[in-house]
């Protein structure tokens, strides 16, 4: 059964086609690595899946729901982490999580809240405002925030942005645990091929707005990735953002 089904999805910004007839499927319970160079359209695709952007053409079903029509309902079942997660700087970590849980319609006990913070490697006793947090700490808090309403599907855009190697390792261990023990479907948009090889069951390589490859993780992933991105660059020189 598929958690995500996308057929012939197109999206343009100011006359530029960012996504060109993109089709992809993500099975329930898998970790899907969404790869592609900068400007390939990964973030745009994730935003369309969340219902934050409308597509120009094509059909999108996320957990059997149309995000364009029932986005608000769907988002209660999705946890999303953006590339640079935004927080209310005057609140501390717990207050930020509490606020997000409340606007998701969920009540989280203080014990569970501490558990979420510990799970992502943050100190639950830290009462400093989030404005004082480093980029890595914000990234960890962003991950805790997208788990706080216990979603079925996680859409993670560069989740290890700003983390040191140890932090990256911890986060990937956590994602593996969430996938194995809680059956969460995870879409991971990243540039780090090593992590994709270690973590993902399936990958999709997006170049120039088209999914150039979708399938199991190949042994020579790096070469495949470089070849596909180079070929696309030669054929599609004008695709530069997404």
């Amino acid at each position, binding site marked *: 059964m598929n958690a995500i089904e996308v057929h012939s999805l197109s999206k343009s910004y100011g006359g530029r086609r960012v996504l060109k007839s993109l089709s992809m499927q993500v099975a329930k319970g898998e970790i899907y690595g969404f790869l592609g160079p900068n400007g390939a359209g990964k973030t745009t695709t994730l935003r369309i899946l969340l219902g*934050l952007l409308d597509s120009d053409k094509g059909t999108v079903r996320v957990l059997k729901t149309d995000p364009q029509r029932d986005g608000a309902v769907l*988002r209660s079942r999705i946890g999303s982490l953006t590339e640079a997660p935004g927080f209310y700087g005057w609140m501390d970590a717990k207050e930020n999580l509490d606020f997000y849980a409340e*606007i998701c319609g969920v009540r989280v006990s203080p014990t569970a809240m501490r558990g979420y913070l510990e799970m992502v490697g943050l100190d639950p006793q830290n009462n400093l405002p989030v404005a004082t947090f480093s980029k890595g700490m914000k990234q960890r808090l962003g991950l805790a925030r997208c788990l706080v309403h216990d979603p079925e599907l996680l859409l993670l855009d560069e989740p290890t942005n700003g983390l040191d190697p140890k932090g990256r390792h911890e986060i990937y261990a956590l994602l593996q645990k969430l996938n194995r023990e809680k059956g969460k479907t995870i879409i991971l948009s990243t540039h780090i091929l090593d992590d994709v090889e270690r973590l993902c069951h399936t990958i999709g390589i997006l170049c120039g707005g088209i999914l150039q490859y979708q399938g199991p993780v190949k042994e020579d992933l790096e070469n495949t990735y470089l070849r596909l991105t180079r070929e696309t660059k030669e054929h599609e020189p004008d695709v530069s953002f997404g």
Partner: protein
Amino acid sequence: MSQMLALVKKECREDIISSRGGLFYLAGAIVLSAFALLLVGNTELSLLDNAQALYLMSGLVLAIALLSAVIRGGDGFAGERDRGTLETLLAAPLKSNNMATAKLTGILFSWLVLFLLAVPYLWAVGSSGQNLVAAITVLFAAGTLLTSIYGGLMLALSARARSFKGVLSVGVAVALFSAVPLVLGPSLRQSAVGHLFDWLNPFALCTNMIDSIVIDSQGLEQNWSALATLIVYLALTFMIMNRTTRKVTL
């Protein structure tokens, strides 16, 4: 509903706890204190009768409320977008027009705090007269309507704007234009253009209503046309806000 309440709570807390909110009320209190001192201490202004002093103080409170509604309404979506928190809000299972309603409630909360802050000043300049209760009542009604209208319109603009700076410039220009009647001479205000401007301008409608009730001791029933016009403007504002914020994008 509970999700909307969570956002209302956040807006109200931010208004009080954040440094921006605190500074705004401090600045408001300083302006009101300075003006109250002028009204009682200045040789010429102290000659004004009690009702006129109340009218001037109420006008100043309304002007501050107008500016606050413009800034907070403009900040509603555009400010969140600039600070990178809009995506977080939009990623939550909350409809964006419900988000706008919650933000408007936050703007009204801010007005309530300002109003409570202004009451002692009104009492200080008008306690010896007979119109103090009427002035406080009409100021509360006019301020609530005015804040809802300008706050709602600015939220609608903010939902579509790319940056807070842009919304703020438009908002401040509108606020200044709305406050023009305060500096127009009596003859110009009595002309057809002056009357038309008064009817098109919610701020002028509010100040005229306060003028009639506080200075001329009229009742609210004698100002029904101004009140009805403000209610029509309010209904239009809600329609515009609801339509514009139905789908807020990044």
